[in-house]
């Protein structure tokens, strides 16, 4: 009885202290809710020690083991510096996947019932989605600690200004990831399936170079199976954009082709930076496609269909170099259907 009297008194006191409902414009209320949802994502990230450990260790393993092996075993055959290439991809992918996971974790929360709390609140669904994308993007910055640490551990030659430029893309990367996440949760209702989806999402454009970044259906005759698989995946484009901004593995330069046509490229990081005396960078098609994305179709390089030669492309000295392809990049040194020349691009 005494406890009940005490509780009743406390309840009365709580009511007397209760404030009037926050009388603010709708936009302010939505912004307040966005901040609340975003901060929840950050809190979840910093409270989970296991998640922090995984977020830091995963890039170390990925860059250190996988990237190191590829660089060591295949690097000499590559016409560009592989580790900077992969580093930029990791940074872009981390931000992209953060945005995506912010949305797809709704599937898990739908299972455990927490989405009900979000969706009965007097806010729009867009506020929930926006808050989650922003929050999970900030939370995914934790993963960048591991990625950036590898710059020092593996002595990867990058310019931090370049990395900052990639980070400037973070909102686009995060929102693109979030957009894919929204599409994803439309037809995936099982958290385990969502996890598999995340795992499958890692590879595209992160470790394998893009052959072509344009979506021109007229180029379909050049497409191989891997290209067709990757074609509709937005992260492929975003990785390319990030690499353009960071100049990572886009060693193309302005110059003239054999046909005399002047082509502008972007200043690139030469492979020689990591392997003194190595072949000069010839990753022109990657840069060309990226330039096309950035500056419009007028900057696109013309490429011949697979199986035909093009006099516009030559070779680096006596060494022929093939167009970098997701399916054929590793067959370096052979006489491929497309050849490019550093000298011709100067």
């Amino acid at each position: 009885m005494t406890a009940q009297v005490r509780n009743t008194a406390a309840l009365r006191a709580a009511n007397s202290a209760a404030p009037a409902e926050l009388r603010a414009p709708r936009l302010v209320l939505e912004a307040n809710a966005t901040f609340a949802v975003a901060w929840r994502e950050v809190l979840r990230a910093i409270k989970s020690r296991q998640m922090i450990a995984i977020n830091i260790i995963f890039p170390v393993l990925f860059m250190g083991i996988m990237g190191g092996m590829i660089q060591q075993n295949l690097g000499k055959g590559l016409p560009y510096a592989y580790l900077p290439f992969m580093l930029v991809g990791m940074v872009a992918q981390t931000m992209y996947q953060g945005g995506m996971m912010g949305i797809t974790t709704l599937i898990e929360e739908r299972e455990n019932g927490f989405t009900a709390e979000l969706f009965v609140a007097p806010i729009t669904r867009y506020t929930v989605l926006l808050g989650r994308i922003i929050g999970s993007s900030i939370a995914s910055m934790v993963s960048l600690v591991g990625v950036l640490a590898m710059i020092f551990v593996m002595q990867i030659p990058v310019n931090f200004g370049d990395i900052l430029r990639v980070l400037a893309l973070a909102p686009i990367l995060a929102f693109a990831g979030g957009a894919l996440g929204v599409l994803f949760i439309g037809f995936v209702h099982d958290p385990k399936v969502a996890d598999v989806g995340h795992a499958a999402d890692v590879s595209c454009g992160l470790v394998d170079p893009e052959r072509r970044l344009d979506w021109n259906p007229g180029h379909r005759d050049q497409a191989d199976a891997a290209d067709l698989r990757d074609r509709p995946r937005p992260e492929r484009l975003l990785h390319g954009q990030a690499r353009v901004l960071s100049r990572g593995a886009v060693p193309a330069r302005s110059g003239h082709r054999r046909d005399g046509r002047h082509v502008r490229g972007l200043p690139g990081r030469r492979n020689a930076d990591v392997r003194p005396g190595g072949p000069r960078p010839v990753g022109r098609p990657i840069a060309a496609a990226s330039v096309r994305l950035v500056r419009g179709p007028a900057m696109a390089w013309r490429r011949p269909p697979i199986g035909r030669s093009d006099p516009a492309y030559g070779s680096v000295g006596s060494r022929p170099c093939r167009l970098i392809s997701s399916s054929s990049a590793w067959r370096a040194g052979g006489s491929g259907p497309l050849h490019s020349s550093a000298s011709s691009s100067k």
Partner: protein
Amino acid sequence: MEPIITVEHLTKRYKKAAVAAVDDISFEVEPGELFAFLGPNGAGKTTTISILTTTLAKTSGHVRVAGHDLDADATGVRRNIGIIFQNPSVDQHLSAEENIRLHVGLYGTYSYRPIYRLMPADYRQRIERLASVVGLEGQLGTPLKSYSGGMKRKLEIVRSLMHRPRVLFLDEPTAGLDPVSRASLWEYLRQVREEEGTTVFLTTHYLDEAEDSDRVCVIDHGRISRLETPAELKRQLLERVILLDALDRDGLIAELRGLGAEVGLDESSGLLRVPFDGKTPQSLIARIVTPLTVLRVSDPSLEEAYVALLRESDSESEEVAA
């Protein structure tokens, strides 16, 4: 006084479903009322509560909650309701206070700050006082992973009251709780009703929880079969009876008939059964001379009335089908 919930001809038909989950139901709930919405599994309870809480679109009908039209102003409806779901809808990764802070941020009750100490003093006072009401004082900073089911329910009560809702929807709030937790939770809810005048819309399978409700609405096969006070429902469906027996059963039967009582045989217990509606059982018992071996006074519970109602409904459905 205007009803706080008005439902008119509400219908919900799921795609590819042969029959409507909710079929043209209408009812009103008065402010401050404890309204029990009962029904067997699949009757349409959760569908109805989902529509009223704006989480499910209706097929047709008209709904007003707390003066806000569901179609025209769903946000206004949400702002005036609190919900305790069947399954706890809390974030296990956060502390209790962080869950509540997120809630007030979503509802715009207080401006959200990333740290508890930065939250307005009003917020801190209210949360601490409400926590003391439900017995969670000193445990708000504890991670929810260490909370029991009962503690999570108490947290949800605190959370649902933070924005001072006019209607509190409780969807089987005590499912999975032990008897002690159930009892204490209802004690707190009773206090909340007394102090805040909050209207409570309850669905439950524990019929004893609905005994204290102001009105009971029974839904079956998507239609409302009864809408009465608990006492009226019991009176309509069940008799109040005395169950008794004696070694000299024939003598007892003759004596009871001599006293003007209608004597029957209770099929379930095998005892003699004497209805006493309109009289007190004592008026009959005091006049019995035959030595009794068994004497029970049966005052039917809401659960018995509910079961009788559903059986009646099932038999009617079978007759229609036949």
